[in-house]
């Protein structure tokens, strides 16, 4: 019962804040609403027993990625009028139609294709369980992510040092 209430509270808050992200006028509000959305997703992770991922969600997304967005927004330091002008000539109706058609297709696929199999036993996503799987079965992809992060760091530094021609 408590699980059901928590699911509805978290998911509705998640969807409302996600709508706020794309409807907010200024990017700082969007980033802060995305923070709410991330925390609700973290709550949904806990409801499904993914405790380690909940910590990762809060640490990486809320702690690192959104702070990076805030840095970028404050670094650019645009005047507020520019942000509102960027919205002026968007093709909103077409976007809404595309999104609704997409949602209808997704719902149709989910209702058609997903057979409700019984839950196959409790599987707590603790640090131990994820760590054992990560370092035994998925050792090679885990090591390859370090290359990805290295490439991202080198790419970001190279882009930051690039001289832009006028």
């Amino acid at each position, binding site marked *: 019962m408590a*699980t059901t209430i928590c699911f509805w509270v978290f*998911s509705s808050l*998640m*969807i409302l804040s*996600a709508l706020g*992200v*794309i409807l907010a006028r200024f*990017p700082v509000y969007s980033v802060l609403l*995305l923070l709410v*959305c*991330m925390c609700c997703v973290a709550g949904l*992770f806990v*409801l*499904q027993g*993914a405790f380690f*991922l909940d910590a*990762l*969600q809060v640490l*990486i*997304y809320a702690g690192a*990625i959104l702070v*990076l*967005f805030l840095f*970028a927004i404050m670094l*650019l330091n645009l005047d507020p009028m*520019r942000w509102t002008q*960027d*919205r002026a000539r*968007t*093709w*909103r109706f*077409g*976007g*809404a139609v595309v999104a609704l058609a*997409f*949602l209808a297709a*997704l*719902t149709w696929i*989910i209702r058609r294709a*997903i057979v409700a*199999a019984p*839950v*196959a036993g409790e*599987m707590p*996503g603790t640090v131990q369980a994820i760590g054992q799987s*990560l370092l035994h079965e*998925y050792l090679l*992809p*885990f090591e390859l*992510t370090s290359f*990805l*992060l290295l*490439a*991202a760091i080198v*790419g*970001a530094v190279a*882009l*930051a040092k*690039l001289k*832009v021609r006028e």
Partner: protein
Amino acid sequence: MVGLTHYLIAAGILFTIGVLGICTRRNVLMILLSVELMFNAANLTFVAFAHQRGDIAGQVFVVFTMTVAAAEVTVGLAIAILLYRALKTLNADEAKLLKW
């Protein structure tokens, strides 16, 4: 009783909101934020299937997705700042240098 379908529908709505954001907003930063929403929807789907099937692999893949999201945001924001330095705008419609 909340089951797999509920989580999948919630993730689908979240993904659709991301698609809507990409279609309607023209600011590069807002497009990147919408991509983050879609990443989260995919993560939620992974965790929902991992919970239903009792398989830890779905949760392991969410760890990889988060790594990819962090790398993508780092490079994407660097490109956005470069775009602003070069064109003095963040509007994706005005970045049409390749359109010749």
